[in-house]
């Protein structure tokens, strides 16, 4: 058998049987370079200092930990919200993107590309590109450019080229295919800013590390506020970066339960959902082995979710491992449950969450019933809902002449 030199640091490229690099050979040199530059940057105090400064002065960190009293009363347990929605650009995505923008500069590459579903990662990448003076191209499924038109305009204002992707299901999965095609062609001068904890190594571990500031802060804030850790930590899971970001700091705390809530769409018993860990099986998609929504021939199934950011038939490989080992629990939340939670947070706290984050809020209701009124639940409020106004207005029948999709 052939000996191939290990190209990434041990433990960083695989999570049990998951992860790895299922990509064309043409990309391996760039992945090796990224691995090396990232490892080097992690050892460089100047890199960390610059990232910290950007996160504080530019992104507005640390984000608040907010005790949502009226929402707590409504769901029946104490709920703490990690307010990633208050970051610059309105979501947690900026944490990862600032880290990768610094690495892009370190590699001397003048161009970045990104895929985006809801547009939050695209907006974050366009923002960082503007800040660092990088050329930026964002691939976005045509369906998503329609349901997230406001974010398309934001990216364009920031100087990015937004390319609507018309192949396949015209959503996040196809945007990612197109971004990979661009990267294979332009890898010499281009960094692909993958927006979640998926993709080939080193992305899953690297993106987790950049997102981990969420959990690191929240853990310290919980200890300050309560003098102890929360009973459960929860987040929505599409690709899974906000969830890995908040989980990472708690994985070693065995008493703390971890919950990931996937997009159940019309219901897990229908074929219209995006609950990859609940309804999928192990396979390879977009460069990593993980769970995939697929048919028996390994063809990717089209996913569905009211939330563009969760509408993805894959999931980061570390989540697959956390599921298999039982360290984290994953469950689906239907569109309706998510939208009910969306409205509940609006009405009880005056906070309009992203529909993605509303899946975690809906999940909190269920966990509250399971753990009882004395439980403390830490929920990652991963983004704000401004981008979702049109979807929400239609769902709740707030648009004149529009039939309510839900009462």
């Amino acid at each position, binding site marked *: 058998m052939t000996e191939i*030199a290990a190209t990434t640091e041990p433990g960083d490229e695989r999570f049990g049987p998951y992860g*790895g690099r299922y990509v*064309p*050979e*043409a990309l391996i040199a*760039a992945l090796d370079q990224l691995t090396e530059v990232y490892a080097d940057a992690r050892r460089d105090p100047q890199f960390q200092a610059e990232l910290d400064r950007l996160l504080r002065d530019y992104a507005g960190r640390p984000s608040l930990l907010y005790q949502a009293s009226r929402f707590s009363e409504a769901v029946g347990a104490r709920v703490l919200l990690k307010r990633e929605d208050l970051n610059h650009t309105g979501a947690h995505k900026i944490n990862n993107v600032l880290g990768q923008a610094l690495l892009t500069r370190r590699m001397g590459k003048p161009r970045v590309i990104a895929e985006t579903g809801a547009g939050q990662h695209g907006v974050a990448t366009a923002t960082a590109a503007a800040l660092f003076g990088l050329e930026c191209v964002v691939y976005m499924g045509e369906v998503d450019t329609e349901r997230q038109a406001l974010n398309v305009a934001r990216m364009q204002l920031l100087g990015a080229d937004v390319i609507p992707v018309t192949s396949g299901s015209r959503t996040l999965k196809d945007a990612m295919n197109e971004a990979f095609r661009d990267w294979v062609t332009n890898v010499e001068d281009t960094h692909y800013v993958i927006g979640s904890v998926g993709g080939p190594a080193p992305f899953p571990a690297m993106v987790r590390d950049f997102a981990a500031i969420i959990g690191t802060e929240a853990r310290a804030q919980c200890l300050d506020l309560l003098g102890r850790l929360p009973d459960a930590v929860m987040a929505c899971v599409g690709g899974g970066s906000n969830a890995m970001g908040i989980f990472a700091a708690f994985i070693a705390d065995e008493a703390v339960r971890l919950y990931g809530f996937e997009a159940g769409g019309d219901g897990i018993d229908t074929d219209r959902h995006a609950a990859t860990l609940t309804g999928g099986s192990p396979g*390879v*998609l977009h460069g990593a082995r993980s769970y995939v929504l697929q048919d*028996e021939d390994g*063809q990717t199934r089209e996913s569905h979710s009211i939330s563009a950011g969760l509408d993805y038939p894959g999931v980061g490989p570390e989540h697959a491992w956390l599921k298999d080992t039982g360290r984290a629990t994953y469950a689906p939340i239907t569109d309706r449950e998510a939208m009910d939670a969306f409205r509940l947070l609006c009405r009880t706290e005056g906070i309009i969450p992203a529909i993605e984050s509303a899946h975690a809020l809906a999940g909190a209701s269920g966990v509250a019933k399971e753990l009882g009124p004395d439980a403390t639940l830490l929920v990652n409020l991963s983004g704000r809902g401004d981008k979702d106004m049109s979807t929400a207005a239609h769902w709740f029948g707030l648009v004149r002449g529009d039939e309510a999709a839900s009462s």
Partner: protein
Amino acid sequence: MRSADAYAAARGQGRAALVGYLPAGFPSYGGCIEALRALADNGVDVVEIGLPYSDPVLDGPTIQAAAERSLRHGTRITDVLRTVEATAAMDVAVVVMTYWNPVLAYGVERFAADLDAAGGSGLITPDLIPDEAGEWLAVSENLDLERIFLVAPSSTPARIAATTAACRGWVYAASTMGVTGAREATSSVAPALVERTRASTELPIGVGLGVSNGSQAAEVASYADGVIVGSALVRCLLDADSEAAGAAAAGALTADLARGVRTRAVVSP
């Protein structure tokens, strides 16, 4: 016949082998077989049958469109294997080009056994590098199947050495950085890549990505052991008014390419 034998036979004639690609089930199951017969009748040495996949990240618009159409007709892995069997009966060597997830879903061992039974020589795996191929390395060894991994212009010498060492049969040199698709000019980096690859292997080297006519084929044949043509053949079928016309056009292009790969033998005996 293994595709390595077809390479050896071409080498014996002092020329490069012609490798032609079509995705199974496109334009239809029968239409694909008809087109493959046109390839075989017009001088192709090795047929590369594509297994249509929902997320072909290394394919350009032409092959994407063909794969999408094939899948819309409901092409299954079993249809791909039937296509292999029908093509192997045409007295050409057959390899399957596939993204890795369909093979994983079917089962690596089961896929290899069924491919072998159908008369296929082996697999070209565009998104599987040897580092991830443990099970396939073992299974292909047992069944004496060919493993054709890719080398790219960005591959370091160390990676070319490791990748070619893991190959059986021949090596696929992706001549340009980018996705599949016909190009105006063939790549200038391709000869350099072939030269670097030769430094680490005795195996024949096929060059793909971008060849669309006989003169480009002749140019590539001047430094490579095989000339791989995909998108230009698929284009013949996409542009045709009928399956018969598509097969005829693909046959005519194959004849032109077959002349191209023989040009070197004529000019430098």
